[in-house]
């Protein structure tokens, strides 16, 4: 009996104490977009004997602010920081995972993927210039589709968000007017529309309002089985959103020509590249050597890049191509000797 209690106590202790034994518990915070995946990776990693990585979604801007304030070991952001900012704050940056932002629509009678839109058309819709679904600009793109004379309700994120950043970055790249009037950022001054809180809020409004259009992370489109529209890419094609088209966008990007991986994947070249492909970046302090918590975090990402692809794909994310993870390893060696 006594030994049973002792064994139980020991089991409990061994369950709880690793946090102490493994002195550096590692905390990360930031992007909501990578939260599910990092939670999954962290769980897999700890089950294989790795350190416990606690990642919390507080938003990309929060991730940047918290890593600058040094309250976390690493931050995550869907928007890359320019190298000048990184150096000023003493940070390094590398991509972690790739996904896509997809327009969702509520158009009765229109099948998922049936509606086709170009970047300029999306910009005109979000500028409030194209107000109905049977506007000539949309009809001319969809000869085989009968579009109703329904008013368009634009839905955007109400909270600041990395998803928004990638969406408006794309609109700014394809529409000079958007670039001049609205610009880009994690939150912008929207010319029109209603704001939903989080992806869930946007999804809820799009599902509820007939004639609505909103932009969502790919996982929400899949999980909520929503009707999405295809967007024309830089090569003039309309690729289906998904692993193949996201990965092609990632592969077409010339990461080697950037410094600190400062690259946004939207409007990437390549026939099959998805036009609104988004990357999540990890931010870590540039320390004299990779020790303690920083080393723990790098070990975690090294493990994730090597063994985390299946988990990523199961959650509808796209893992980084091998060429990119090799470049990241080299970047670590160069910056954290």
């Amino acid at each position, binding site marked *: 009996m006594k030994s049973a209690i002792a064994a139980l106590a020991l089991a409990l202790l061994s369950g709880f104490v690793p946090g102490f034994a493994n002195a550096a518990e590692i905390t990360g915070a930031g992007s909501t977009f990578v939260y599910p995946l990092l939670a999954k990776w962290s769980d897999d990693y700890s089950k294989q004997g790795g350190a416990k990585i606690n990642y919390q979604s507080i938003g990309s801007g929060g991730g940047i602010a918290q890593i600058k*304030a*040094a*309250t976390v070991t690493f931050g995550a952001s869907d928007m890359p920081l320019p190298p000048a900012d990184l150096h000023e704050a003493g940070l390094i940056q590398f991509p972690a995972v790739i996904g896509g932002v997809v327009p969702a629509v509520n158009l009765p009678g229109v099948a998922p993927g049936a509606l086709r839109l170009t970047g300029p058309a999306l910009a005109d819709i979000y500028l409030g210039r194209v107000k109905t679904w049977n506007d000539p600009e949309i009809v001319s793109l969809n000869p085989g589709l009968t579009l109703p004379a329904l008013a368009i309700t634009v839905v955007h994120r109400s909270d600041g968000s990395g998803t928004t950043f990638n969406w408006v970055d794309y609109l700014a790249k394809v529409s000079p007017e958007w670039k001049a009037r609205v610009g880009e950022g994690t939150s912008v001054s929207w010319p029109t529309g209603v704001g939903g809180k989080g992806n869930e809020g946007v999804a809820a409004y799009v599902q509820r309002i007939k004639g609505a259009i909103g932009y969502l992370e790919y996982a929400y489109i899949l*999980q909520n089985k929503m009707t999405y529209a295809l967007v024309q890419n830089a090569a003039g094609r309309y690729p289906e959103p998904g692993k193949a088209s996201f990965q092609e966008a990632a592969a077409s990007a010339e990461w080697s020509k950037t410094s600190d991986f400062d690259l946004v994947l939207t409007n990437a070249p390549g026939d099959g590249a998805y036009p609104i492909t988004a990357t999540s970046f990890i931010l870590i302090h540039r320390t004299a050597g990779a020790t303690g918590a920083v080393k723990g975090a790098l070990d975690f990402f090294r493990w994730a890049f090597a063994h985390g692809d299946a988990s990523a794909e199961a959650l509808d994310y796209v893992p980084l191509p091998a060429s990119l993870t090799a470049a990241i390893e080299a970047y670590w060696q160069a910056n954290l000797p």
Partner: protein
Amino acid sequence: MSAGGARMLRRQVVNGLALGLATLATLTGLIALVWILATILINGAGALGPHLFTRATPPPGSEGGLLNALLGSLMMTGLAVLLGTPIGILAGTHLAESGGRRWIAEAVRFVNDILLSAPSIVTGLFVYEIIVQPSGHFSGIAGAVAMAMVLLPVVVRTTDETLRLVPVSLREAALALGAPLWRMVLFVLYPAARAGMMTGLLLGIARISGETAPLLFTALNNQYLSFDLTRPMANMPVVIFQFALSPYPAWQQLAWAGALLMTLFVLLLSLGARFMLRPRRG
């Protein structure tokens, strides 16, 4: 007679109408209560089960519970009570015992009432600035301090109010017997006001166990079960907040189950507080 009768009738009609509308207003309030509780119950009941109490929050696609969040909330609430209650009781005693005339007591009473209704997100920002940023990490302690700041004014106010209800004769008798003030307060006033003070504490705990805003920037959250108060700590409100807005059905289920547990806990506390209060009122 007929003019007077018509007037009487009109008064009766107005009376009936007013009382009818009053009943309708009460029904509206009750319907809102039932509607909200039913929503929580219907969505949350399906996800209830022992696993909620034995397993930590899962990554998407796996099974799990709310153990880390429940224990984290419990620990932080406990610490917040340990921090907030003694200070609150002492400050409340000061208010009740220093008389209504002194400007400082009036100022504190006024300020306390402001704190009582101050937006709690502002409290979170304050604790972030004074604890999280200087110490370099989010922590359960910071979360507990933020919760204590929300709890404190509730305790101050109820202590002040209930102590002032204790009959003057009781105090004077104790003091006339030569008891020092501190003995009188400790052994006469507090026992006499115990029920009211406990009520205040329970209401305060009910208030802090549902607060999300002050925890977001202080305790953060933790995917794992952790007993280390110097590290980020899981808690119910933030887990519910994150999971409710996620795309994964399993997480949304946990959010509703958590919402149900939290609501039940808070409502039981409020009811308990009322129950304690009743003998005093009756």
